[in-house]
């Protein structure tokens, strides 16, 4: 008990005086997760809408796949990316392993199915409502996608929050491909995992508090937005 309260005091100290290492970890976490989330949106949102509005062979299979991939185990994704980026892997020559870029790639793979599945769900509903009008109005495929996303922009914000919430709290994939290198690829979650196992509770606790505050805020905003828009 004594140790915990000492660690807690230290943690508050780290946050309070804006410790350099602590801040850089938070910054990297935010940077990696935001980049991965935005990239997943850029790729997944149009795909999700396209799956809802076009009819082609194998479409049902793709929808099923994207839904099944929602439960992708992060560690396995990390492992696959690791194998691809490792020096003997197919993408080894880029030297990306154990860099923030590798972490972004791993998270992008995790998040894209989420964005596709959630966007598809939204777009299927909107297409039922507006699809006929768009077709009669002669909107092309890309224009239809843009309009569905514009109409559903409120829902897309919750999709963003859901994906970001998953990214920022994820540890399995980024620890494998990032390596938790101090000052370079150490994020909040990887730091907590490693520091705790080393018994360095202060930094872990401080990061834990920030992480909880962040994911609490993200989820609260998502919930409030969803409630406000349902009206």
């Amino acid at each position, binding site marked *: 008990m004594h140790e915990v309260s000492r660690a807690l005091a230290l943690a508050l100290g780290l946050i309070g005086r804006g410790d350099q290492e602590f801040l850089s970890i938070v910054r990297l976490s935010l940077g990696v997760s935001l980049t991965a989330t935005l990239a997943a949106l850029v790729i997944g949102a149009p795909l999700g809408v396209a799956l809802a509005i076009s009819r082609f062979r194998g479409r049902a299979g793709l929808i099923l796949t994207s839904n099944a991939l929602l439960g992708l185990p992060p560690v396995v994704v990390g492992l696959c990316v690791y194998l691809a980026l490792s020096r003997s892997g197919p993408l080894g020559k880029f030297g990306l392993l154990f860099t923030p870029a590798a972490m972004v790639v791993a998270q992008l793979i995790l998040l894209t199915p989420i964005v596709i599945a959630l966007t598809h769900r939204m777009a299927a509903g909107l297409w039922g409502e*507006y699809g006929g009008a768009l*077709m009669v*109005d*002669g909107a092309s495929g890309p224009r239809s996608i843009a309009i569905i996303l*514009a109409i559903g922009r409120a829902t897309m914000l919750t999709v963003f929050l859901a994906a970001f919430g998953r990214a920022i709290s994820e540890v399995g994939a980024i620890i494998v491909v990032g390596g938790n290198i101090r000052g370079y690829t150490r994020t909040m979650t990887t730091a907590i995992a490693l520091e705790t196992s080393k018994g360095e509770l202060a930094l872990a606790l401080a990061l834990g508090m920030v992480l909880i505050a962040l994911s609490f805020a993200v989820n609260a905003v998502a919930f409030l937005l969803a409630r406000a828009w349902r009206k």
Partner: protein
Amino acid sequence: MASVVLNEVRKTYAGGFEAVKGVSFTVSDGGLCVLVGPSGCGKSTLLRMVAGLETVSSGDIRIGERRVNDLEPMARDIAMVFQNYALYPHMSVFDNMAYGLRNRGTPKPEIEKRVKEAARILELDALLERKPRQLSGGQRQRVAMGRAIVRKPAAFLFDEPLSNLDAKLRVQMRIEIRKLQRELKTTSIYVTHDQLEAMTLADRLVVMNGGHMEQVGTALDVFQNPASVFVAGFIGSPPMNFLAGEVDTQGRLRLPDGAFLAFDPKRGEAQVGRKVLAGLRPENVALRNGVEDGAAPRFRLELVEELGMGRLVHGKVGERPFTVAQGASDPPPSGYSLSIGIEPALVHLFDAASGLSLTSAAPRR
């Protein structure tokens, strides 16, 4: 300007359900054809096939000179008004109306001119900058109409465009749609499940039931000469009364309780002994006080609805519910000893087994 011709059009959905089972009719150039029928009878499916929003399983659809079966909706030169209006919520009224024109590459000044003109006709001038959510239901309906008319298409397709409005507005908009359609002389197909809306709008009425076409004709013709029990019961409000009976002698039916009902044998053949349904329109039936001659069907009074311009008298004849529509000047029913009377020429007869009319001169198609 174009006519729309449907020839043996069928639709089987992916699951194997046949929603439209061979429908053929023609909408003449500038005419307004109403598709009417109960929920689920395939009206929207048929309209969406004309629009190109559903594939045609078999049969031909022609708009003007062209067979359009395999054309994209945009290439068919139609405009459609949807039941939910489907106005783009993030666009202004102006942009909603202009969108279809922009996609077709219409020059800007022309778009401006057409939208302004439509807005004037529909009294939307002051609302062009608003978003759909800032409009009332009736105004949204007008925008949906405006989006259709700016295009100056070969045909308008309406899918229950008034069903989201309250009763009063619905009547008002019904009249406006009719006026507008007369003025623009654009060939139109209008879908509704409201028989009154159908009667008042139609140049030509197509009554559908369970994916089949039951009857085609002018509103008056369908009303006066319903081709089947289904049409007879569906068109007209309050609906036609039906009494089961058997042809006793030429020109006379025997009802189960021993009463007799005279019909006009000249209107159609009905052999003696045939089991039939007699159809009596509520407004053609007179109520008589007392049971004068024992042969007239007896009416058991249950409820009187006063409407001001008349009244509806509900009761039973034999075991069947029966309604009589009285004018305001008719004496209200007094006492419970009543019988019904009707001109023999106004009695419709239907074959009890097939439901087809025996008295209607009109061909079924």
